[in-house]
């Protein structure tokens, strides 16, 4: 049957290249393997030529698939499932790329694409290592190609293709409108009924979604280079690969680090997770390979400079790539379901994903242990006063910290394997923090002192002479932070607070010692200072994390007295404990929020990005500071009827004020209620639906309300207080203005109580009886609830990330220059 309006060609092209990519990468693996085994030079050369040709075919296929899928998304061809489920017509152009990697298939393709780019650089640069390294990479390409092939192999589905048609995936099975009345089959013109796709998840409609995945996947993809060199080294029992790998490992660490921190920045800036890091499994899964990779980078340096630590270098590089694969398994298999907020959805490929891990893990471990004895190691142990000894300790701590994090993250896997029903601890973040704070202390101090140690041996006098200046400065700086910055995070007891102060010292020490080392130790030779700059950045990251997390304060503590019915949420014994963090703002009503008076002034709907922006006006009680913030919400798609919130932040150099909407209610009901007239005299109490009001006194021509009155009028105002059930007090002054026989009513209202009061007339001059019109409209006014946080020193964290990446780039340049000169300093 032919369906009207379908574009089948792009899908056929896509499928063709998917198959070609699978075949070409497999053949490239074989050709490279044969080239690797062949000793005879001309044969080897011809195998390599063949393999390069196949890798070229593979690269072209990946690129062609990339372009085809982008074509499908950008031309809104909703007959394709990928376009239908991940995009819609209203998306801005820049988000079309984000649609691309919203799904698993597109992100696998992105990964594959980076492997191709890296592969060509390796073919160009890696010389005699090409066959071994490219064999591993081509095999990884084969595995990735199998993830998006989407064919059935002996009844098992292999991969999930992005080029499948919606109608073949059962999308319209349950919707009778798409069916032909007579036959029950799909209507030939079904496409005319599909006006739009289901869109990109609103949480992901953000510029970070455009740039974060490519960088992170470049980080993931690049971890294969040290791994591939290590495998080639084990197979050939040659260990010179350690030199060309150093800049690669630095590059990988820089990219992976940037990718992870971009994710953190995204979470902080645009998602309502209330912070930049939550020890979420998805976050951990990308952090851990970075930790082990950095460990490997350091032992690699040790070996290059002293000949020690070759075995751990092999191990760390291997395990880093394996952990990348494992994190792929964790985030894509749906196994994290109940513990993570942002994993991919399950595509039913768990077995294949697990095989992807094992097919690299098992051979790599087998090779490593088989060749362990043949890897050279120095029998004499490291000197305690040597740089290599302490760098090794630091690497070991980083590695173990990674292992601890990933073990904790793997609880759902344990449940799956053992059939248990263990759940994360009550305070997940603290369970990580209480351990990692000590890692921060150890690593921070090691980062500081190791710079002042020399390889092989350092004279104690030299070390003592050099180290005391940075130590003294750091003690002074960190003491002043501890004493004056008011870091008093006492929720977890004095022990943890002490650890925080220790960690602040350690991280300040890392910054100061490395900064001084650039100046003193390297005599300001900035070109050689890549490592020190990266260390300064790392130290700054730690300082930023420590201060911003331990001093994060909630500004929106609900102090408005709006909650007496439920008791004080902060009171001891209240099981709710902390989270009374939402404050309610009624439109145009200024509300007291600690340091600020805040007002929700208006909201506007931006038709371009389909977001509703709320204008929140902040006026500081002291100092007269005044600013507006515009947090927004976007209506959810994909079957959701609610909205997702995007925070807004006011940035200062030393802190951020961070606000996001947690709910909003709009009043669009028509007001049909009428005034009811009540009698009262001064001192009387009147009840209304949600509380009562007191008539305090009558004021004649009050000066402060003169603006409401026209010249020549006499005015009479009632000074009243409305007290709602929840204890809030609202002053209100309805009045009348008289001019001769003309009487003008000046009603007043309590917006948040939807209460309008009107002073009708004086009933009896003698008894002081008055008539007051009371109107309670059923509809409440527009209101929002929001949370407001203050993050101090958050900019130190972001600055640290930038400095660290800069340091990595400098050291990559430095290594490349050195390797150009061929200066291998293995003793």
């Amino acid at each position, binding site marked *: 049957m032919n369906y009207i309006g379908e574009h089948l060609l792009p899908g056929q092209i896509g499928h063709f290249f998917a198959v070609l990519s699978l075949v070409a990468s497999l053949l490239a693996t074989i050709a490279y393997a044969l080239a690797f085994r062949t000793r005879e030079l001309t044969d080897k050369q011809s195998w390599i030529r063949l393999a390069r040709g196949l890798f070229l075919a593979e690269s072209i296929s990946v690129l062609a698939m990339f372009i085809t899928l982008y074509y499908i998304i950008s031309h809104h061809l909703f007959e394709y499932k990928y376009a239908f*489920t991940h995009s819609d017509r209203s998306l801005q152009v820049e988000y079309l790329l984000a649609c691309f990697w919203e799904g698993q298939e597109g992100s696998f393709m992105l990964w594959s694409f980076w492997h191709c780019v890296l592969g060509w650089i390796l073919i160009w640069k890696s010389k005699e290592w090409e066959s071994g390294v490219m064999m591993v990479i081509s095999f990884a390409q084969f595995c990735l190609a199998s993830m998006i092939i989407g064919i059935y192999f002996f009844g098992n589905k292999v991969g999930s293709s992005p080029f499948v048609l919606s109608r073949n*995936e059962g*999308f*319209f*099975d*349950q*919707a009778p*409108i798409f069916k032909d009345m007579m036959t029950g089959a799909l209507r030939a013109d079904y496409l005319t009924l*599909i*006006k*739009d796709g*289901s869109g990109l998840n609103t949480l992901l409609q953000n510029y970070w979604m455009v740039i974060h995945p490519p960088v992170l996947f470049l980080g993931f993809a690049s971890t294969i280079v040290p791994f591939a060199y290590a495998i080639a080294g084990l197979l050939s029992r040659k260990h010179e690969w350690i030199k060309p790998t150093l800049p690669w490992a630095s590059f990988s660490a820089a990219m992976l680090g940037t990718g992870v921190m971009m994710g953190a920045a995204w979470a902080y800036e645009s998602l309502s997770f209330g912070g930049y890091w939550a020890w979420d499994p998805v976050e951990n899964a990308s952090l851990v390979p970075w930790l082990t990779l950095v460990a490997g980078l350091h032992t690699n340096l040790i070996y290059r400079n002293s000949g020690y630590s070759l075995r751990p270098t092999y191990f760390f590089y291997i395990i880093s790539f394996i952990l990348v694969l494992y994190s792929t398994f964790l985030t894509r298999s749906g196994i994290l379901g*109940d513990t993570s907020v942002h994993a991919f*959805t399950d595509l039913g490929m768990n077995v294949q994903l697990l095989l992807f891990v094992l097919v690299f893990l098992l051979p790599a471990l087998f090779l490593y242990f088989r060749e362990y004895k043949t890897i050279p190691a120095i029998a004499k*142990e490291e000197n*305690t006063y040597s740089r290599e*000894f302490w760098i090794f300790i630091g690497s*070991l*701590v980083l590695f*173990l910290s990674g292992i*601890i994090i990933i073990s*904790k993250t793997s*609880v759902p896997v344990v449940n799956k394997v053992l059939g248990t*029903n*263990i*759940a*994360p*601890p*009550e305070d997940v973040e603290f*369970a990580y923090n209480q*351990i990692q704070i000590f890692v921060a202390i150890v690593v921070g101090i090691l980062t500081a002192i190791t710079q002042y140690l020399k390889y092989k041996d350092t004279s104690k006098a030299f070390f003592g002479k050099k180290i005391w200046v940075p130590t003294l400065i750091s003690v002074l700086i960190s003491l002043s932070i501890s004493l004056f910055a008011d870091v008093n995070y006492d929720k977890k007891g004095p022990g943890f607070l002490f650890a925080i102060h220790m960690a602040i010292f350690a991280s300040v020490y890392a910054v100061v010692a490395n900064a001084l080392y650039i100046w003193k130790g390297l005599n300001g030779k900035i070109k050689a200072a890549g490592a020190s700059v990266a260390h300064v950045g790392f130290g700054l990251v730690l300082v930023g994390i420590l201060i911003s997390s331990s001093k994060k304060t909630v500004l929106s503590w*609900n102090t408005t007295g*709006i*909650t007496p*019915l*439920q008791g004080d949420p902060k009171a001891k014994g*209240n*099981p*709710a*404990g902390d*989270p*009374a963090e*939402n*404050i*309610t703002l009624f439109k145009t009503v200024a509300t007291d929020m600690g340091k600020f008076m805040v007002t929700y002034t208006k909201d506007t709907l931006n038709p371009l990005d389909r977001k509703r922006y709320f204008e929140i006006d902040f006026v500081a009680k002291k100092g007269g500071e005044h600013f507006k913030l515009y947090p927004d919400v976007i209506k959810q798609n*994909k*079957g*959701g*009827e*609610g*909205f997702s*919130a995007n925070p807004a932040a006011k940035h200062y150099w030393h802190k951020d004020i961070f606000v996001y909407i*947690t*709910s909003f209610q709009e009043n669009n009901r028509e007001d049909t209620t009428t005034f009811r007239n009540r009698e009262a005299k001064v001192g009387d109490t009147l009840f209304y639906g949600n509380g009562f009001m007191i008539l305090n006194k009558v004021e004649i021509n009050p000066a402060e309300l003169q603006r409401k009155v026209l010249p020549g009028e006499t005015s009479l105002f009632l000074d009243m207080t409305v007290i709602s059930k*929840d204890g809030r007090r609202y002053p209100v002054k309805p009045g009348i203005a008289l001019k001769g026989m003309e009487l003008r009513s000046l009603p007043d209202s309590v917006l*948040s109580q939807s209460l309008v009061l009107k002073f009708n007339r004086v009933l009896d001059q003698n008894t002081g009886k008055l008539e007051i019109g009371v109107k309670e409209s059923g509809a*409440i006014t527009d*209101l929002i*609830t929001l*949370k407001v946080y203050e993050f101090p020193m958050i900019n130190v964290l972001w600055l640290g990330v930038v400095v660290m990446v800069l340091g990595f780039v400098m050291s990559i340049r430095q290594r490349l220059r050195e390797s150009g000169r061929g200066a291998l300093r293995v003793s």
Partner: protein
Amino acid sequence: MKKTHIIVLVCIAAAIVVLISYTGDLTTYETIASAKEKEGKFVNLIVKLDKAQPLEYDAVKNPNYLTFTAVDTLGNNIKVVYHNNKPTDMEKSERLVLKGRVQGDHFECKDILLKCPSKYKDDPKANKNVQAAS
């Protein structure tokens, strides 16, 4: 034995101790019935929102007070009190993971994780939306 070996072993031992102590912090997934037996113990419940019962949240009265009834797969139900804002789209979620403890007659919830229907074809409601769009 070299001192690096000793340090490696000590560090690994420390890591193992840390992980073992972590198991002490771990909690469990429970059913409503078993959670009621373990009153006061921090547990995780995998439940559904009971749509027959009222969900109470009024930002005017108290933006930090949400109460609803949860029902688990065994059909037991319990009143849940959550001192925070109502998570967006809660009515739409197909499953809730509640973290907290049973206190007296209700479940005092500290955190709610929503599992929303995201797979299009399994969700008849989403298909209805397709029709609406057409």
